[in-house]
């Protein structure tokens, strides 16, 4: 199997690390080799955060080179746009259509970019209303798991593998909400 590269981007606190761990658990079931890279520390305090999952027969680098990601899972629009050049041509940008203003935008120093979806050319952009779906599932913080549901459907591995990965990585008391969020994402597109 050729290596498959997923970049997960978002804002500190949105659960990118949890998402990479769930996807990593799935990857460990379906591929011989897996690597995940995450950054902790200062970047978690509301900063731009990226984590990366690579899987296939033999994975060396834990980080994805620019222009080689098969999928970007973006929890926020500006972050999607920021990391867009990491996608391959015709790669998949799976994006939560939520805007979270960074401090320079809040302070009026620079505007939030407009029409982000249309500006990301030569890739497939799927814009998902993940925030209302997460809220519907019972927790606005489950945006990450809604998107993971959408991704799961696209990747096509057994749904049970994803469900097991959720169980293994999500604390028991949040499991029901997250399973609901996952299903809402999974059933969003045919």
């Amino acid at each position, binding site marked *: 199997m050729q290596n498959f590269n997923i970049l997960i981007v978002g804002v500190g606190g949105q659960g990118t690390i949890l998402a990479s761990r769930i996807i990593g658990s799935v990857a460990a079931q379906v591929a011989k*080799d897996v690597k995940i890279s995450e950054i902790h520390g*200062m970047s978690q305090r*509301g900063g731009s955060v990226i984590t990366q999952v690579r899987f296939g027969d033999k994975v060396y680098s834990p*980080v994805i080179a620019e222009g080689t990601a098969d999928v970007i899972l973006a929890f926020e629009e500006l972050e999607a746009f920021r990391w867009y050049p990491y996608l391959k041509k015709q790669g998949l940008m799976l994006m939560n259509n939520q805007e979270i203003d960074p*401090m320079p935008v809040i302070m009026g120093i620079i505007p939030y970019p407009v029409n982000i979806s249309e500006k990301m050319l030569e890739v497939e952009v799927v814009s998902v209303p993940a925030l209302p779906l997460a809220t519907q599932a019972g927790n606005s913080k489950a945006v990450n798991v809604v998107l993971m549901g959408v991704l799961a459907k696209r990747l096509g591995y057994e749904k049970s593998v994803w469900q097991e990965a959720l169980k293994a990585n999500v604390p028991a008391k949040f499991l029901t909400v997250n399973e609901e969020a996952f299903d809402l994402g999974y059933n969003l597109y045919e």
Partner: protein
Amino acid sequence: MIKKILMTGNEAIARGAYEAGVTVATAYPGTPSTEILENIGKHYNEISAEWSPNEKVALEVGIGSAIVGARTLVTMKHVGVNVAADPLMSFTYTGVNGGLVLVSADDPGMHSSQNEQDNRVFGKFAKIPILEPADSGEAKSFLIQAFDISEKFDTPVLFRMTTRTSHAQSLVELAERNEVGLRPYVKNTMKNVLLPAHARLRHPIVEERVLKLAEYNETSNLNKIEMQDKKMGIITSGAVYQYVKEVLPEASVLKLGMTYPLPKKLITEFITSVDTCYVIEELEPFIEDQIKAWGLKIIGKEVFPLLGEFSPEIIAKAFGKDYHALTQTEKLPVRPPVLCPGCPHRSVFYAIGKLKLRVSGDIGCYTLAAAPPLNGMDTCICMGASISAAHGMEKARGREFAAGTVAVIGDSTFMHSGITGLMDIVYNGGTSTVLILDNDITAMTGQQENPATGITLKKQLTRKVDLELLCHALGIERVQSVDAYDVSAVEKAIKEEVGAAEPSVVIIRRPCVLLKGKGPTGMVHVNKDKCKSCGMCAKVGCPAIVFKGSKMPIINETLCNGCLVCAQVCPFGALEEVK
């Protein structure tokens, strides 16, 4: 089939310590090293694991433990080794008894650090072996081997991780614990009491040890040669090996697992067996300089960067390759990390801004207040420097300058190395005002306990340091404590203390908002009838208050937790608590 599981490098080190029969582990938290001790504390009861107040103490506890016979792990971030350098430089003379491995987690690219020093230089300086794993599997297996080397050669071992090896996950095979037990302890003053007369006898032993280690490294299984196309040879180590394999799959590679002392014969043979040889290493030309000193021809920092973290792209670029496919040319807003909504530090920096004070800053979440709009910091150098540097500022420019300056330090950093600075202010007649931001935890690294928390790494209650009593004991008579969420009380206390011509401390308290069950759970809303769009609320720099092009604030309800700092700053009472 042997079970392989996904682990971060830090989790793998914790596992390696368990399997190697380690019984004592110490650390001060620091990104990217923190999770090693957290994992030991959580999963391996066989190991006595504890947070030390700082890295010097951590290593000294480790030294005592190793000398009396226990396999001992000590972990810290790269700059922590600066703090621990004093014991390290002498411990290399005594040697160990029970094995001791010092993990230094370096941070090339400074994801979460104030510098990007390459701590392999420390290993060479201390004349101790350096091991550099390239993934989690090696982090575990090398660590176990590091203990064998430590005991065989009677030396501490420097185990060099980087952010990418510590925080990347890969598959690891687990094994059983090897209960090595304690080695016998026999009093040996000639070896363990470093009087000048004894130390003079120990130094030649250290030099002989380096030669023996270099000999060992010639045939060690820590290094491996992957011979392919002989046109190009690459010598590399650590995470960079992975990028090399990714970008140059056809090249021959000498992967060094032990990078000090280097195996001269092995390296010479490899270089002479290829047409052109490159040394690719992050940060310092550590391997490169030694090889060049031997007179061998290699290419290194002539083509690869000296600064920052490497990536596949950086190596590809040096060889004229480019994966890059899509471009994005628009100038985008940066997204710097910020103080969390409800962070108890926010009111302090709001008050400091209002009083127009200079800030001698320190290392912690509150360093984030250096950024706009709080702009709350003049200097930030290293752990504990806020207090001593404030004293230096007063000595240079006098009392009036001190009246316009505060030192700002967190509880954990104060425990780490602020106490001696405060003692110095009293001792040498300073009048500085020190603000201790006591949020009851070591927050920036992800909520680790410290002596002022009153809870240990193993989550056991312990005697808590009484900060007020401690300050009094050091000779500070003016000590005030205020609630961080009471904005006017914070401002009043700071104003009073900078105005007093004697040393003073203001302890500003509230648990870190990320501590489970400790933060506020309310919400603020904007009363549009009262709001005059004056922009005062923007000055607190809360990410939950946004403007979306208008002057009237909008509260982000997913982020706001109702700390009410903004409500106290609003002159019109327009930010109201949702009842």
